[in-house]
């Protein structure tokens, strides 16, 4: 057998459950191989794919290094790889879960600091007055540096933090933090507030491909199979099929043409419309006395082209 396609998925926590649900919803159930504690799995119906279970951080690293072909991990972790990460990792699809914001947060008691411009001024005051730079606790060094530089903030020092970052100001090891937050509750509980323009990245889980991995024709073909299923499932979730007894007159043609202009696609017995347009479409058809109308949700919608796969193939050949 030729070399398998390696796909990495998170090995623990809520993210693991969400990825399993998403894959199962696509009909690509994960099947643990090598016992229940195994860190290798198979993907239902995809014999050419080997799934590795890794931590989200290790997946970002493995995608960047080219140790795996495909993987699911947080965009925050991918962006932290530094340099031109887009030249090394191709984002294929945002998954809508694992949402978290990377933000700049300062003590709530700093009533005089609401924006990055305020922070710049205070940071400068601090270095002039005390000769020492303001300390920023974070584990996101790369993104902190880029964001602060973009806002002209230079008078600061990073204190690397590997856990409980939000507690650093209270503990006295830093004045402010750059950290991931979902609801902001942890920051508030630690006496911190997010700056008005302090959102560095609105992150979510991403299905991504490594452009640095070695891609054989067989591995690309395996990736295309998986990607087409994933894209077809995503397209299906966003569409509905409308079927009604055709009348074949000009009024019907006019209604159909109007709906097509608004994003619907013709199908043999009716239309495929974006899910959010179903109500409007049903009203338009009823107004033209076309019906009864049957609305059903498709399981998969396979388009001729698969944009993420085309992008992957182009990216792989360019590298």
């Amino acid at each position, binding site marked *: 057998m030729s070399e398998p396609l390696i796909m990495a998925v998170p090995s623990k926590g809520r993210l693991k459950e969400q990825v399993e649900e998403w894959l199962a919803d696509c009909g690509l159930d994960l099947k643990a191989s090598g016992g229940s504690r195994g860190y290798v799995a198979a993907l239902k119906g995809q014999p050419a794919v080997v799934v590795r279970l890794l931590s989200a951080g290790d997946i970002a690293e493995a995608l960047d290094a080219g140790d795996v072909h495909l993987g699911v991990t947080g965009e925050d972790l991918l962006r932290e790889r*530094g*340099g*031109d990460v887009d*030249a090394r990792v191709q984002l294929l699809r945002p998954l809508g879960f694992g949402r978290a914001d990377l933000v700049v947060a*300062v*003590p*709530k*008691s*700093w*009533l*005089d600091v*609401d924006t990055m*411009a*305020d922070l*710049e*001024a*205070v940071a*400068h*005051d601090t270095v002039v007055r005390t*000769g*020492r*730079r303001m300390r920023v606790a974070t584990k996101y*060094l*790369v993104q*902190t*540096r880029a964001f*602060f*530089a*973009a*806002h*002209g903030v*230079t*008078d*600061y*020092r*990073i204190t690397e933090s590997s856990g409980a970052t939000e507690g650093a*100001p*209270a503990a*006295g090891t830093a*004045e*402010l933090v750059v950290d991931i937050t979902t609801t902001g509750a942890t920051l508030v509980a*630690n*006496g*911190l507030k997010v700056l008005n323009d302090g959102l560095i990245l609105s992150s979510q889980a991403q299905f991504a491909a490594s452009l640095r991995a070695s891609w054989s024709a067989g591995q690309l073909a395996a990736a295309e199979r998986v990607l087409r299923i994933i894209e077809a499932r995503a397209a299906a979730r966003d569409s509905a099929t409308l079927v009604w007894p055709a009348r074949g007159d000009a009024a019907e043609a006019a209604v159909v043409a109007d709906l097509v202009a608004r994003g619907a696609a013709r199908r043999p017995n009716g239309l495929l419309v974006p899910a959010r347009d179903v109500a409007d479409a049903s009203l338009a058809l009823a107004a033209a006395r076309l019906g009864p109308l049957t609305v059903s949700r498709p399981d998969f919608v396979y388009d001729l082209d698969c944009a993420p796969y085309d992008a992957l193939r182009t990216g792989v050949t360019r590298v």
Partner: protein
Amino acid sequence: MRAEPRVPEAALAAIRAPFAGAGVVAVDPPILQPLGALLDVAGEALRARLFVVQAEGGAEACLRPDFTAAIARLHIESGAREGRYYYEGPAFRAAPAGSERAEEFLQVGLEVYGEAGGPTVAADAEIAALSWRAAAAGGRDDLTLWLGDVALFGAFVDALDLEPALAERLKRAAARPRLMQAELARAGGAADTGAEGGQLAATLAGLSTDQAAQLLEEVWALAGVERVGGRGAAEIAQRLIRRAQDARAPALSAAQADAVRAFLKVEDAPAGALETLQRIAPASAGFAAAIAGWRERLDLMTAAGVPVGAMRFAASLGYAFEYYDGLTLEVRSAALGGGRPLAAGGRYDGLPARLGGAKAACAVGAMVRPWRAFAGGEA
């Protein structure tokens, strides 16, 4: 780690001669430098370029990215008031991903420390001329000595006679393109009277420092705000007042903003550049003196053998470097382009104080990269 090839000894001797012959003490600072102290001086932006090392249980150190901070520390520790230091050795900077640049490279250079209030013009001219001679000794014939002056922009801002807060901001923005853009973009606009926290600031402004701090403590208590982070009530109260004042202070006028833009764009043969700068700046004794100082520097450099035709003056040269506060200089080769100077240096009077040394020293320095200067070297 990619290392540079060696420069042939004869070529290296020629390049080193101008610096080594300038009445100097040769020093050899440690390759390993304390990481924290270096980042304090150079800023976090440098971190991505540093090789960081740490022994088990030890403090973080880095391979020296250049010699300036290391020699400043040697000078401070020596307790001497004056010093002329020559150095030669490898320095280390990580290349960005995908770049083929050497990460270990040879630097030779000179750092000159004098008494506060020493003869800055002569010292500037000397270091620029030595840099030129050392770089030119490598045998390239496509060299240009680029000159700039961070302090000149300060003198220009003073000549504009702005509100102190605005002048301060503008000087800080010189090294920070995004801040400068924001400042120029709000030029000609009305003052912002509805700044956030304006009411609190107005109340605080009418109180003594102690009373203001007390009021702020009460505001925190009422809002259930727990005090974390190192800043005290008095400091925050004072800045709230200042921020409100700054917001009320007028922005640059459209004409002033145009003058700032024109100033920073100036790039010409030195004589022409100085004339243009003088035309752009409002008449002021301070700025006229700064320009006169530059005419003197140019005369001294010419006398020391720098061809007039090889010099260019760029008003915004060297702002990217955090610690320069006066003269900035680079020797560039047309073949290598602006991004890979053969020599670079400038004035950094403020640096020793930031490392815990004497305030307001008089310090200039420059380094040459022999492999770039050598005509048969970097291509």
